[in-house]
């Protein structure tokens, strides 16, 4: 029985500190188990009308039912942010402490041995960087290109700076401790038997120093955390983010707690001060934990009857496999220890190598590849929206769905909608003729691209115009321009040099509205090696002018020819007033409470159409369709009865102004027929050049508990398939439609470094088959798990 008096003897700091550290460890290792939301999800501006009352939800949202700790000013759930940020914060602090220790220890030992340089250095450094506040040093130096170039990640810059400039206090206390050890009597004995100073330092001092070292280490971590909290609040060290997303500058990708404090300067002294209190409290908890643990260790080590040190020294022999072997050999004598040790080993190995249960339903990639071949084949001629081929494609898909047993939505698989205009620029030639009669033929899409949906041919004089001539116009200058007779020429505009974008738009507007040349050759810095993607925006500014975009290299060639004549033709196909064909199939849910709630999985079936002489298979896009079909098939055939409705949507017309998804949304969602949608957009998966798989969950409100669960399931399955799923900022036109208060979407995709999608290279060679299988399996398992109500 535990006596009250013996409780008093317990080492409370050690116990409580240990508990706090354990909590931090668990939080760092398994944040997804503790957080209720994905940290990237953002609560957007929302308003609800209830009876006569309108309530606004504007980030930052104060703590309440939906967001227990409130949201930050971008709408992300603060509690999830703090939980996810625990790991990186702790790692930063621990690395800094280790760095400081590495610098401080040798200097401290040298100083304790009365090495004049070491003592002087420690002392002066201490004074210098106490007077010059550490925070100021770090803040000033953190923006240096030197560090950014070497270290790239801002957290490492923090580690470096805090280490380089903050080691001296630790060195000082270590030096005192080592001196203390050196003054003990046994040191004389060691000298007397003839040991050198180095030998004494290594063989005698360090074993005596280790208990203190451990204590100082933990205390130092606490100090580093203190400093980090101060740096965060000043926010000059913006802990980066390297994708410029959404117009948000410097979105912290890693949510270390210091970064959470950066934008709080707007809220000092206001009622939004919770934005500071929660991260600061997280810091406080961790600092308290480390301090208590360190002090507890110190108390423990100072106890003369402490069993801790003996325990620590015996650890190597406890875990030594050799010793275990020896004990097993002499099993009779060591029965108890052997059993305990073997049990521990099994437990640890079990946790690490826990066998994943195999997927319930196998993603048949062979089948999927067949589908891809079919869809990207010649038959559909590049799947241009509004074409007859797309109608055939839609019919193919719907018959597949029917064969699987997927039900038609709203009693039909194929949902027609109007398409005003669908354009395919199929072929073009461009020849440059210089004044000497030399010809240079440019290659369509390699050297230049056409952004206008016209059919056209001709030979023209070319004249270069300068941006500066086209802006800041008055009537005089306009007259000058018009006098040049530019109207009948093909004009060259060089936009490849860095310039103010206002000048650029001004120049283009002048050309479009005032001058209206026959054609406009715009030289742009394409920035990629291969072909221009076909879906590059069809220019809308110019009415009758053909707009040609030319790569920088080709443009330079052109300019070198002086003012040649240019012979070019464009052949484009325009289908007007036609129809697009969405395919919608679903598996009805069983729970009446969810009868108007849908989980929708979507991909695009249309593509850019073939060129006159070139096939555009669109394999990557076909890949997402094929994957979706496979998922639909397996789910439907599994006889699983999901709680909520699961819909499979195949969008047409996604390259057009009014997309298929938009028509779906206005018809069903805005009308109220569907109350809420959680949308999974399957992007191009498994591109050979890049194996990073990205997940964008920023459009899902953190308070949307169900969607957050789905995200979690997806992440678990990614881990099961050994897929490195990371957050990325992904965009596709469909998401514009599928984002609103009631429609929350996420997207999985493989981003491409160089444009591959909608170029000729978007073919079977670009598909990473192994990765495709894994991702397909991951998605299938996720949908299955969601359907089964896991």
């Amino acid at each position, binding site marked *: 029985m535990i006596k009250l008096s013996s409780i008093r003897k317990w080492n409370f700091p050690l116990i409580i500190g240990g508990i706090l550290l354990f909590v931090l460890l668990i939080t760092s290792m398994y944040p997804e188990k503790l957080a209720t939301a994905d940290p990237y999800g953002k609560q957007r501006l929302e308003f609800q009308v209830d009876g006569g009352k309108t309530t606004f939800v504007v980030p930052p949202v104060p703590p309440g039912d939906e967001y227990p700790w409130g949201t930050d000013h971008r709408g992300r759930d603060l509690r999830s942010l703090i939980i996810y940020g625990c790991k990186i914060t702790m790692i930063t602090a621990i690395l800094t402490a280790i760095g400081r220790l590495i610098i401080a220890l040798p200097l401290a030992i040298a100083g304790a041995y009365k090495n004049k340089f070491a003592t002087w250095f420690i002392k002066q450094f201490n004074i210098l960087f106490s007077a010059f506040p550490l925070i100021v040093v770090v803040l000033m130096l953190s923006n240096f290109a030197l560090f950014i170039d070497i270290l790239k990640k801002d957290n490492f810059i923090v580690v470096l700076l805090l280490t380089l400039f903050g080691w001296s206090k630790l060195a000082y206390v270590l030096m005192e401790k080592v001196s203390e050890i050196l003054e*003990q*009597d*046994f040191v*004389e*004995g*060691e*000298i*007397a*038997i*003839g*040991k*050198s100073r180095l*030998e004494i330092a290594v*063989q*005698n001092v360090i*074993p*005596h120093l280790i208990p203190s070292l451990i204590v100082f280490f933990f205390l130092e971590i606490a100090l580093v955390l203190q400093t980090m909290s101060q740096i965060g609040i000043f926010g000059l060290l913006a802990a980066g983010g390297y994708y410029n997303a959404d117009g948000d500058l410097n979105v912290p990708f890693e949510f270390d707690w210091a970064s959470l404090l950066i934008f709080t300067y707007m809220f000092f002294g206001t009622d939004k001060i919770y934005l500071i209190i929660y991260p600061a409290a997280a810091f406080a908890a961790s600092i308290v934990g480390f301090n208590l643990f360190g002090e507890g260790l110190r108390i423990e080590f100072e106890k003369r009857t402490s069993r801790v040190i003996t325990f620590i020294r015996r650890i190597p022999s406890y875990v030594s496999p050799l010793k275990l072997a020896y004990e097993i050999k002499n099993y009779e004598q060591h029965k108890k220890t052997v059993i305990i040790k073997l049990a521990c080993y099994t437990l640890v190995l079990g946790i690490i190598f826990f066998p994943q249960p195999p997927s319930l339903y196998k993603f048949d990639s062979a089948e999927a590849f067949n589908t891809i071949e079919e869809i990207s084949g010649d038959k559909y001629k590049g799947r241009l929206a509004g074409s007859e081929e797309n109608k055939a494609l839609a019919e193919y898909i719907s018959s597949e769905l029917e064969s699987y047993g997927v039900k038609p939505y709203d009693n039909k698989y194929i949902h027609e909608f109007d398409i005003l205009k669908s354009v395919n620029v199929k072929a073009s030639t461009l020849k440059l003729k210089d004044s000497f009669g030399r010809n240079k033929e440019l290659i369509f899409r390699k050297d230049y691209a056409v952004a206008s949906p016209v059919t056209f041919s001709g030979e023209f004089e070319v004249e270069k115009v300068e941006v500066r001539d086209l802006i800041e116009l008055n009537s005089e200058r306009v007259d000058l321009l018009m006098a040049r007779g530019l109207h009948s020429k093909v004009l060259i505009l060089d936009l490849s040099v860095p310039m103010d974008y206002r000048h650029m738009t001004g120049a283009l507007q002048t050309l479009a509205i005032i001058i209206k040349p026959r054609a406009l050759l715009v030289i742009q810095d394409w920035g990629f090696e291969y072909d221009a993607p076909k879906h590059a925006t069809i220019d809308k500014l110019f009415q009758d002018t053909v707009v040609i975009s030319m790569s920088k290299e080709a443009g330079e060639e052109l300019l070198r020819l002086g003012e040649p004549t240019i012979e070019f033709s464009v052949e484009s196909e325009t289908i007007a007033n036609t129809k697009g064909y969405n395919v919608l199939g679903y598996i009805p849910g069983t729970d009446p409470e969810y009868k108007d709630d849908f989980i929708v999985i979507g991909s695009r079936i249309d593509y850019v159409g073939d060129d006159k002489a070139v096939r555009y298979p669109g394999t990557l896009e076909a890949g997402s369709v094929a994957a979706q079909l496979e998922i639909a098939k397996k789910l439907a055939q599994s006889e699983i009865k999901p709680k909520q409705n699961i819909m499979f949507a195949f969008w047409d017309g996604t390259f057009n102004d009014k997309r298929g998804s938009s028509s779906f949304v206005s018809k069903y969602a805005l009308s109220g027929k569907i109350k809420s949608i959680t949308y999974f957009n399957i992007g191009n998966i498994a591109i050979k050049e890049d194996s990073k798989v990205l997940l964008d969950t920023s459009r899902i409100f953190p308070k949307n508990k169900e969607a957050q669960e789905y995200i979690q399931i997806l992440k678990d399955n990614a881990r099961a398939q050994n897929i490195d799923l990371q957050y990325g900022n992904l965009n596709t036109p469909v998401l514009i439609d599928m984002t609103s208060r009631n429609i929350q979407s996420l997207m999985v995709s493989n981003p491409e470094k160089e444009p591959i999608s909608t170029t000729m290279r978007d073919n079977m060679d670009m598909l990473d088959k192994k990765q495709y299988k894994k991702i397909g399996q991951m998605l299938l398992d996720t949908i299955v798990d969601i359907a089964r109500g896991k």
Partner: protein
Amino acid sequence: MNKIIEVKDLTKQFAVTSKLGAKTEFVKAVNGVSFDVLEGETLGLVGESGCGKSTTGRLILRLIKPTSGDIFLEGKNINQISDKELRKIRKDIQVVFQNPYSALDPKMTISDILSEPLSIHKVVHKYQYEKEVKRLLSLVGLSEKDMKKFPHEFSGGQRQRIGIARAIATKPKFIICDEPVSALDVSVQSQILNLLTELQNELKVSYLFIAHGLNVIRHMSNKVGVMYLGKIVEIGDVDEIYNNPIHPYTKTLLSSAPIPDPFNDRERQIIKGEVPSPINIPAGCAFHPRCQHAMEICKHKMPFLKGSGSQHKVACHLIDYNEKFRGE
């Protein structure tokens, strides 16, 4: 027989740092000490606390750097040698410390503690360490089961045995025993002393035996030196000194030692005054303020060790001036 150790005019001054950091005063801990120790012989060094005997031992060991003077090991001057050579020399000069509780690294096992000197001075081959350690332990009367234990698992007497084992591990020529039994119980003291004597016979090693207990010194030493305030005031064969002390201080010291014989009536010499501070050593003969027989010359002139008889030397003006005190 040759001299193992010869010490000439060894002095050591410590500076006292005042509050503002300036060094204005000096403690003369050892104030010109000379003696030699022959092979196989034990020189005892006796005196009150603070007379400088321990400091002398440390100086010879070069644990402290002498302010001036020379130390010769088998004729070689070891005062000015490099650190590296000094470490090699340590093989031959070893020490048994006073305090058995703090002389051994508490975090090392006995086996480690005894293996260290073996490995530093390559006394035996690496694989023979264990065997040698066992041998050393048996020499000092401990069992080989004690090899894996830590110092704090032993009693004071046993720890001192370990300290002795460590000292003899390198097969030294000379061992300084700095009050090796002062911190031990009386019953244990005799065991340790006997051990030391046995070892000397077996290993032919010389001792400098520092103590303040007169009986112990008498038991252990061949020769005795008496120290007062950093100087040797009398030195000679042990029986000579004890039976025939000449220096007033020596006489007082010997007379104050209790003799367990209620019928032994002796003349007690009483000295007046306190031991002066070693910062302010009196001019002339350091003992003169307390000496019964002090003369005028004693206040001004410092007496040197002079021999009346080849081995027996005294530093006192009385032997020159007063027949009564002439030895033999």
